[in-house]
């Protein structure tokens, strides 16, 4: 394998999160417009200054990114629509970065957003994927809760994880969320409350599950020169990876595609797990966050339970993880769930994370996981982000 081109000269800037709402009477279009406007304002740009546009959303139907250009009055010369759910943030980032490097676009807005009507989640489930329709939903229609229950059940058997271990992840994230005024969950969570919560799909209980909500996230990709000229704080990209349908022969998912690409992730960014100041995992259920800690090299496979027992995962701890509260405590705004960790990481390495700011955060690892097509998540992605140094 030849050496991949680096991301030199690329700046990621203007992270913006529209405050989430549990239910919204607005549309995905409305939420996407809000986040796009937020990022453009932060960068002092007008819509006409954009020439690249990337969208991730589940509830835009019947529209796609195409319909949004006319709806929002954009005239991009580079357009992307990324249907990868929880992996879409990093994928949007790496594609946009290459477009700017190649000169196909100068300023790309990457946005993800979804609304949440009373019936949105049920409707989304019913048309999620053909394999899910044919071979998963007829069996109790538990949705992702049931899939992750099976994965968690097997993971606990294989590696001796306990519910307390998963609880540690959830409780730490809630502590982080209390410092994020935009988090949907506002009350403290104790381990006792976690353990005694209502069962949803054994061994998964209420606080293992995200709260579906409406929201949107956005960031801009441009050249370092452009960001510097506009006097914008920014992040740079150390490396990115992406993989789909890895380990298809594993009978049940106990690892993700990251394991295939992790060496390249660190070598391209010229660092090791020990250099990472904060980790943002995709956390629709705590078991998958634990797997990411393993698969991204922070501990060995199967030692995730021991790892979370010995580390403090809060903003002020020795292993800051999902600093805004993640989806488990800030809420899952559809496809924006694939952006929440990335946008928070951008704030962190730019030093503008406010109440959730990790001290001296210079290097962040963001990872994505998406699309339970049948029995497991198919898409994985990850990126290492650095604090930008103005040229």
């Amino acid at each position, binding site marked *: 394998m030849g050496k991949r081109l680096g991301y030199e000269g690329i700046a990621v800037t203007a992270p913006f999160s529209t405050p989430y709402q549990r239910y919204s009477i607005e549309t995905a279009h409305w939420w996407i417009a809000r986040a796009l406007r937020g990022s453009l304002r932060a960068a002092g740009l007008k819509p006409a200054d954009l020439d690249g546009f990337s969208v991730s959303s589940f509830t835009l139907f019947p529209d796609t990114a195409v319909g949004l250009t006319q709806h929002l009055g954009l005239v991009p010369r580079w357009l992307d629509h990324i249907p990868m759910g929880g992996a879409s943030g990093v994928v949007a980032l790496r594609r946009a970065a290459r477009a700017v490097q190649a000169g196909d676009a100068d300023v790309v807005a990457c946005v993800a957003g979804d609304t949440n009507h009373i019936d949105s989640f049920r409707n989304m489930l019913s048309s999620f994927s*053909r394999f899910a329709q044919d071979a998963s939903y*007829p069996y109790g229609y538990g949705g992702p809760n049931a899939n992750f229950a099976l994965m968690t059940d097997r993971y606990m058997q294989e590696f001796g994880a306990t519910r307390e271990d998963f609880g540690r992840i959830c409780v730490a994230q809630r502590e982080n969320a209390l410092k994020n005024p935009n988090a949907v969950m506002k009350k403290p969570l104790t381990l006792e409350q976690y353990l005694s919560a*209502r*069962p949803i799909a054994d061994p998964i209980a209420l606080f293992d599950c995200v709260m579906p909500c409406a929201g949107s996230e956005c960031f801009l990709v441009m050249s370092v020169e452009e960001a510097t000229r506009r006097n914008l704080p920014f992040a740079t990209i150390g490396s990115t990876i992406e993989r789909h349908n890895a380990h298809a022969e594993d009978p049940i998912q106990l690892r993700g595609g990251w394991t295939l690409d992790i060496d390249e992730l660190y070598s391209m960014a010229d660092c090791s797990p020990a250099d990472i100041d904060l980790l943002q995992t995709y956390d629709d259920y705590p078991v998958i966050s634990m797997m990411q800690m393993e698969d991204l090299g922070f501990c060995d496979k199967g030692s995730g339970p021991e790892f979370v027992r010995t580390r403090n995962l809060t903003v002020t701890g020795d292993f800051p993880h999902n600093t805004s509260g993640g989806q488990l405590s800030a809420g899952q705004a559809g496809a924006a769930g694939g952006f929440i960790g990335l946008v928070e990481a951008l704030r962190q390495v730019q030093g503008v994370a406010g109440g959730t700011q990790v001290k001296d955060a210079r290097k962040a690892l963001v990872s994505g996981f998406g699309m339970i097509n049948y*029995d497991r998540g198919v898409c994985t992605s990850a990126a290492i982000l650095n604090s930008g140094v103005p040229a």
Partner: protein
Amino acid sequence: MTPPLRPPSKKDPQKRTNPPLRPPEARSRAALGLTAAAAEGRFALQVCEECASVQYPPRDACKACLSTDLVWRDQSSSGTLLAETTVRTSTKLFFRERMPWRMGSVRLDVGPVILCHLHGDCRRDDKVTILNRLDAAGQGVLLAVPAERTDNMDDDPQLRALSADPKHRRILITDLRNPNTPALAGALLDAGAATVFLGESESWRPHANRSTLAELENVEILPLDVTDTASVEKLAGEIGGKTDILINNARFMRPGGALDRGDTAFAREEMDVNYLGLMRLAQAFGPGMCSRTGDGVNSAATWVNILSVHALSNAPEYGCFTASNAAAYSLSQSLRGEFRTSGLRVMNVFTGPTDDDWYQELPPPKVTPNALARASVAGLRQGLEDVWCGDVANEIRERWRRDPKVLERELTQGVEGA
């Protein structure tokens, strides 16, 4: 261990009857191969004709070699339970009313991993057997059951929901006079049926079956003439609300094709009993049964038709009778569509020549009343849509599947001349 299923207590007429809810029905065309196999009680998966790779979930191209030549083949139904869960919340009303619902992940010995319903006696890491059954949406679904039989195994609620087990159910057999009625009634009672209603036409005419059956416990003989709309409606008014399974065995038959007969008199009788009789029964009993498919232990479950296998392709020696059976078969397909939303199933029992007076001239093999009864009860227990009873029926099915035109040509052979 499964607790034994208790007979339901008497229904409180003031209580609302649970509406007929269904699990998800939508499937890709490829996935309907599983449903087609379930209709006959087989466990089949797609296999690649080029590289022999076994596939699941159903696909349009092979995951190993990209060949589009995938065929459904019966497979070993043995596997190991990898993981299990008990789903306690669902956005689908069918499951919501039946929570908690067990499901699991099974690695099949033939390779693929399946998600499936889980019998209550299965535990993680157990060897399990996979059943492919029709669910209330009329789609094939997979259920893991213990590899070895356990006590009261058939009483497991998830397994029972995928069957039309006669146990504790009330069953109407429409024609007391049919030679197969005593065997059918006996087999259903042996299977635990709560009541067997027997329809009797022209009760003034003496009949041997009456003396055999009238004395049996849990059997009620009631007036029913399927050629008389008023008679059918009257009986539906009396027992339509407690008919859980209806077995239509009413039959009028005479030998011969069109030229063997001088007029249409017998053909009218055949159509009146075999085709219009089914329609009258469906119009009178269908709506009530459809409204009771969610009614607990003795919910309405299945509509059974007993048909000549030559409904698929005519046998000219009995050409006119067979034509009326083809009409009834076609109507049964319409009823499947009309009943689908309620979850009421239509099971067709296709039989070869039966061992009774009207087939006396034909050589063996013939289907005895006991064989027909056994096949019917087994079909109900497995929740089948199509039962092929006897060697002739199975052979005709195979030939029909291989090439309907070749079968037609063989069945319409001329008489050797000079």
